[in-house]
């Protein structure tokens, strides 16, 4: 137990059990050693570590040892500290396996770029004494957008007419946020439905987690566009439509068997894109936007602006009573 940590905790957080006070870290290189009760000192402030962050995906918990849930001792504010982890790993996207790199520098640049832009998570990139770029992030209190949509307790028709117009309006704003990144030569890199959060109180949609870097340059925004298309498909359909889900929703085998391969996702062959075939009240124009992400598409969006040019007019169509 570090005497300095003990003094800090006694002064700023007297309710914290002293017996759990750990060490003070000014070099965060060995993030596996930093745990509950330790303090990370950065730029004049001290962050008490409560636990490692964990991501919940596909029903399993995936610990992120380089991400620490903390409290700023001097101010009492909760923060998430992302430490440097130069990880390079294969990522499966549809049928492809792509090399993905975790980049603190990229996320730090984007945090600076989007400072005070509430369409994105906010934070400060700060270097520790060894030059590791730690990202000190503000917490977003709220829920993932996909969880919010899943929780709407209505059938699809009611959802589409009463809830979707507002959701689409905000999602268009989220697409504009991504376009902003692209216009500054940056890419989000990990656009997926659990990286778009709905903030409690404001209901603002906010992007999180921009530390993934890839090496695609002939179509530099392709991965982000693919992510936006996937989220849009989820929002229009109030969930994804695979054969199993279609059966659960009460669609017969005859419906499913009449759907050709071209009606399914370019990347995920079991995910239906041509939703108008299930829900005929989806405007043709909106369905056409979705179909640009289908296996039957011959022309793809190359930029978010192209996507928005066709998606934005759909807002009027879905908002009509």
């Amino acid at each position: 137990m570090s005497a300095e940590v003990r003094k800090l905790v006694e002064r700023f957080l007297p309710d914290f059990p002293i017996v759990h006070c750990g060490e003070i870290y000014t070099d965060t290189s060995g993030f596996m050693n930093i745990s509950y009760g330790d303090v990370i000192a950065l730029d004049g402030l001290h962050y008490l570590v409560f636990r490692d962050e964990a991501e919940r995906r596909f029903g399993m918990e995936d610990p992120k040892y380089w991400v620490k849930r903390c409290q700023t001792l001097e101010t009492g504010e909760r923060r998430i500290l992302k430490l440097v982890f130069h990880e390079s790993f294969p990522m499966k996207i549809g049928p492809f396996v792509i090399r993905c790199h975790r980049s603190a520098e990229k996320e730090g640049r984007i945090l600076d770029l989007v400072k005070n832009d509430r369409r994105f998570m906010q934070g400060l990139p700060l270097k520790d004494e060894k030059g590791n770029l730690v990202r000190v992030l503000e917490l977003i209190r709220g829920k993932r957008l996909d969880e919010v949509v899943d929780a709407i307790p209505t059938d699809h028709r009611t959802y589409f007419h009463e809830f979707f117009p507002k959701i689409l309006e905000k999602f268009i704003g989220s697409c504009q946020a991504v376009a902003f990144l692209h216009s500054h030569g940056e890419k989000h890199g990990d656009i997926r439905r659990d990286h778009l959060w709905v903030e409690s109180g404001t209901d603002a949609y906010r992007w999180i987690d921009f530390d993934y870097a890839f090496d695609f340059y002939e179509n530099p925004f392709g991965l982000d566009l693919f992510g936006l298309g996937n989220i849009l498909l989820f929002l229009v359909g109030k969930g994804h439509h695979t054969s199993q889900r279609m059966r659960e929703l009460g669609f017969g085998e005859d419906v499913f068997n009449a759907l050709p391969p071209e009606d399914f996702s370019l990347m995920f062959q079991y995910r239906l894109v041509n939703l108008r075939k299930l829900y005929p009240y989806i405007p043709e124009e909106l369905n056409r936007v979705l179909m640009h992400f289908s296996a039957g598409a011959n022309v793809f969006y190359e930029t978010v602006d192209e996507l928005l040019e066709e998606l934005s007019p759909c807002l009027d169509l879905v908002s009509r009573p």
Partner: protein
Amino acid sequence: MGWVMDFKKILVAVDASENSARALAYVAEMVGGSKGFRVELLHITRLPDKDLFQDEKSWDEQRLKQEQKAQEFLKEARAVLESKGVDPGAVSERGFCIMGHSIAENILEIQEEGGFGTVVVGRRGMSKAEEFLFGSVSSKIVQYAKHCAVWVVA
């Protein structure tokens, strides 16, 4: 017509891939032994994003390796053309490195600046899904090329 297409001035975009080798062999067969053609071999190395490296030093090491590979490849590519009777004086080579930019856009910039009437590029044969995610140099060149002929060797 406000412009004249010098179709005998050929820009061949090459890398170390098989499809590029096919494109090179095709040009050699078409042009070898004929007069009046000028061929520029263009090798563009796209340097990886610095975000993909732990530090500047490891990125720099990778850059040097790629530049050296490009120089070796251009020499071999020249040899292929000369072996088919292309006049050595009619062949030039250009290799350079770019960062964070589309190779197809670079090729088209060079085509326009140099007044090349023919651009030759190999095609790997990507699926639609691959093309959507990764982009295709040959598709982009076909889509955006102006005032020139494009030979895509598949």
